[in-house]
């Protein structure tokens, strides 16, 4: 039974090279040949997919982003740091500290920073609003974590699942919801009017932006903190109590230290997210509250590409620096103690009417009112506004969406085209993002040299803002590449699909990778010992076992595509490739009705995605 191993090692099937076995088994030569070809393909499949995925990633992410980089340092054919220098020296961007870089005395700068009419600059303001948003998100998220981790009530599980919803809700839709709530004709003013109070206009104020950011990020804070709280071992608290600690001391000394890292994680992510915020500020703040990202967009619109690129890179540097600092901290401080016995949950109805029982529940009641106003009101207001017209309830706004408009100039947004484009781009980008994400998940859950590098390379798109990706695709692919004398240009629609795929595939990775990681390696080894090449083991064993996570990842990617705004608005400008979020942005100032109707359509699509994610892989999502 000598096997021709050298044959097998070359990647050609070994089963056919053995004459002794061939005579023993009564298989036809054609069947053998077919098997040989198939095995050769299967052997090379993983490497092939990996190479294809990395090539695609280079083509639709790294190359375009690199062109942005080059745009900022290569002006008129000459390498220069001038653009960066001028941004960093301009108080308009960096505020008072910029004066340090042009050589003004430190004392004078500090003096003006301390004076009331100091200038923050665009970057300073962006950090300031991010800090405020972080405080608001933590303040709003922690009571929710307390409620979810420590109380038992009907609907608790559902509420806990809902904390993942913001990941898939399009931010421009949230913007519409806030306009419908806080706008001049919004729900808030209607309520105030009914109560005989004066009107307020929160739109285009910092407050509205911060509340909208809290809507987005407080659930994230709540989610990570709840998870940490649920993993506190009750016996640790009981030990502290038996050693003489009061309930408060036990909380302070045992529970709280296990929560800090998660609260900090929520806060750090919130800061990074809100630092690079774009659609919400565009919808609720306008250019008078411009953050860096909004300003980058404005520069792109004004065709100031070099300055836009430099500014985007400075922002990216700050975001990555913050993330890196946080990850360094996390690596040092995370204690993962899975509580064998979690802290018991209390009923929401007080068992007795003592102060100790009533006080926290009273606090939660107050919180519930605030949470209702922040989380529920925008969505409810949007739905309400979409159904109302001048003469009460109407479906006119929805009819407007499906009407093929014959009137209007070609540059006007055609609502039905937007709906159709969104679905088309969603499906097309899913077709790219899903295989990419699965391949990356496979690559990052296997052991080999250089795995960390692949992981970092594949996850970088999460950190790069959509504006930069959009700009890169615009400059690098849509405007065309010179290859061997001929110009290769990619259509706007394809570029949008690429941008959406880049935005979506990390979510596929994040849902599929934990599943693959959890598969017992002996299953794969058994399959291989039975004769399955590595790729076959993946298809036959691993993927069937993680398919719920694959579906959840697909739902994620689809939802991300449907809601994507930043890259799309850069790529869709001046074309007819509008998507629903872009249409909403165009409608928001002038026609709130269609904007809210479109917002509701987005809500339905993304909520359906959310349901899939929650049913099939919610707890495994690596966030």
């Amino acid at each position, binding site marked *: 039974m000598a*096997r021709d191993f050298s044959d097998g090692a070359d990647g050609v099937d070994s089963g056919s090279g053995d004459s002794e076995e061939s005579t*023993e088994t*009564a298989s036809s030569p054609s069947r053998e040949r077919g098997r040989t070809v198939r095995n050769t393909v299967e052997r090379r499949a993983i490497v092939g997919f990996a190479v294809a995925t990395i090539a695609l990633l280079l083509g639709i992410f790294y190359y375009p982003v690199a062109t942005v980089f080059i745009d900022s340092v290569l002006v008129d054919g000459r390498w220069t740091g001038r653009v960066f220098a001028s941004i960093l020296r301009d108080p308009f961007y960096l505020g008072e500290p910029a004066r340090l870089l042009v050589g003004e005395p430190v004392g004078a700068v500090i003096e003006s920073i301390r004076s009331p009419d100091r200038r923050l600059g665009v970057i300073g303001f962006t950090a300031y609003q991010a800090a405020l948003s972080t405080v608001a998100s933590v303040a709003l998220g922690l009571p929710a974590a307390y409620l979810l981790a420590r109380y038992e009530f009907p609907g608790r599980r559902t509420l806990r699942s809902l904390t993942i919803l913001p990941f898939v809700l399009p931010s421009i839709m949230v913007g519409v919801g806030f306009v419908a709530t806080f706008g001049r004709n919004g729900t808030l003013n209607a309520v105030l009017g009914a109560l005989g109070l004066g009107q307020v206009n929160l739109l285009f104020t910092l407050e509205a932006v911060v509340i909208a950011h809290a809507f987005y990020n407080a659930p994230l804070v709540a989610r990570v903190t709840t998870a940490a709280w649920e993993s506190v071992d009750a016996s640790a608290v009981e030990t502290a109590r038996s050693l003489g600690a009061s309930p408060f001391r036990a909380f302070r000394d045992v529970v709280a230290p296990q929560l800090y890292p998660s609260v900090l994680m929520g806060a750090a992510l919130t800061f990074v997210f809100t630092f690079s915020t774009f659609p919400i500020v565009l919808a609720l703040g306008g250019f008078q509250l411009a953050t860096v990202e909004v300003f980058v967009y404005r520069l792109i619109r004004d065709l100031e590409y070099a300055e836009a690129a430099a500014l985007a890179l400075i922002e990216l540097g700050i975001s990555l620096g913050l993330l890196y600092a946080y990850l360094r901290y996390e690596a040092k401080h995370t204690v993962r103690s899975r509580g064998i016995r979690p802290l018991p949950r209390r009923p929401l109805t007080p068992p007795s009417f003592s102060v100790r029982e009533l006080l926290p529940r009273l606090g939660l009641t107050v919180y519930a009112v605030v949470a209702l106003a922040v989380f529920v009101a925008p969505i409810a207001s949007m739905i309400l506004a979409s159904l109302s017209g001048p003469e009460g309830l109407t479906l006119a706004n929805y009819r407007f969406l499906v009407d093929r408009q014959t009137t209007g100039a070609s540059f006007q947004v055609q609502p039905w085209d937007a709906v159709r484009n969104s679905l088309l781009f969603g499906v097309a980008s899913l077709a790219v993002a899903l295989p990419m994400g699965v391949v990356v998940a496979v690559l990052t859950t296997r052991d080999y040299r250089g795995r960390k590098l692949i992981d970092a390379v594949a996850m970088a798109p999460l950190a790069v803002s959509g504006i930069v990706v959009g700009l890169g695709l615009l400059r690098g692919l849509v405007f065309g590449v010179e290859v061997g004398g001929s110009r290769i240009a990619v259509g706007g629609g394809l570029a949008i699909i690429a941008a959406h795929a880049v935005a979506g595939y990390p979510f596929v990775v994040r849902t599929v990778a934990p599943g693959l990681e959890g598969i017992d390696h*002996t299953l794969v080894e058994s399959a291989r*010992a039975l*004769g*399955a*090449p590595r790729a076959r083991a993946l298809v036959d064993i691993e993927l069937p076992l993680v398919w719920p996570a694959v579906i959840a990842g697909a739902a994620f990617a689809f939802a991300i595509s449907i809601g994507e705004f930043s890259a799309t608005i850069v790529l869709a400008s001046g074309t007819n490739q509008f998507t629903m979020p872009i249409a909403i942005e165009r409608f928001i100032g002038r026609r709130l009705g269609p904007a809210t109707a479109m917002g509701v359509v987005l809500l339905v699509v993304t909520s359906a995605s959310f349901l899939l994610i929650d049913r099939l892989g919610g707890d495994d999502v690596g966030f």
Partner: protein
Amino acid sequence: MTTLGSKEPPPDGADSDHAAPTAVELAGVTRRYGETTAVDDLSLSVREGEFFTLVGPSGCGKTTTLRLIAGFEEPTQGEVRFNGESVTGVPPEDRDVGVVFQNYALFPHMTVGENVAYGLSFTDPPGGGSDEERVRELLELVALGDMMDRDPDTLSGGQQQRVAMARALAPGPDVLLLDEPMSALDAKLRERLRVQVREIQQELGITTIYVTHDQEEALAVSDRVAVMRDGTPEQVAPPRTIYREPATEFVATFVGDNNVLSGEVTAVRSTDRVDDSSDESGRSIADVTVDSTTLSVALDGDSGPEAAVSAGDRLTFCVRPERLTLGADRNALTATVTSAEFLGETTRVHLDWEGRELLLRAEDPPTGTVTVGFDPADAHTVDRQ
């Protein structure tokens, strides 16, 4: 001979072992993970049709050795050979091995039948029948003929283990690799299954490499046993030799209970007296002083630590607890009973002899102070310095 296997079983008798060609060979294999060395310059050869067992405490490198043979790991140094040919770089799917893991690793999304049939997607069933016939044949072999359509997780642990066996055997592998396939089962079932595994191995005549930490299991089923420690084999021999003539102190104490004593050789005598007990005739006897007691130890080997023993050497020898006899006058030791464990057929008695612990097997455990002794021929030398 059924159609199940593709090889002739080895002819009966121990002599055949020497005649059978080498199926699997490890030549100077070392496997390092960073700083730690799991397998250290290991050389072994497993003969065709042999039931070969790797036994040792956890961390001794036995599972790594099996994974190197299966191709899940590659050696850092050295070479694994199948039928004399190097398999370096040959992926597991091309090695023609069947593997059964400790947790069975049944594919949870497939039925029992689909599990067994899986390997047949990559090769034709040996014997020329259809895939389905082969699956049926294998399930009948492991007495699970009616479980074809069941989900693996509806089976008991023992049944799952047998499905895993059937699955590994279905494509007709050259070598069967078993990685602690019994350790998740309860003791009674383990004993029954190991007999079954041995019977199937005998029926198919398949070269089998078995990894276990259970020395009793190793002795019970194997043709030959390699006792491993720190990544190298201490001794490779048939079970009886391992038990009766352990090569090292580690083997002596790892396999079964043992009493290990060491002392200085004061004299070496030749016993050619015909009237002496037959056990000792023609052998050398060493007088070994342990503390202040002189004991007689038969030197029955002309190689290893027993060869050329002379006065002044330090000798380490062992005597099995069942070879210590109460009230014997040869090599008599006066000891105190400290405790006794009732094991059913016998009792393991712990004795204190001048500050050393001795073990004794007895049917009726004594108490108080006792005299135990042993025949010099029952002492086996494991080390000489």
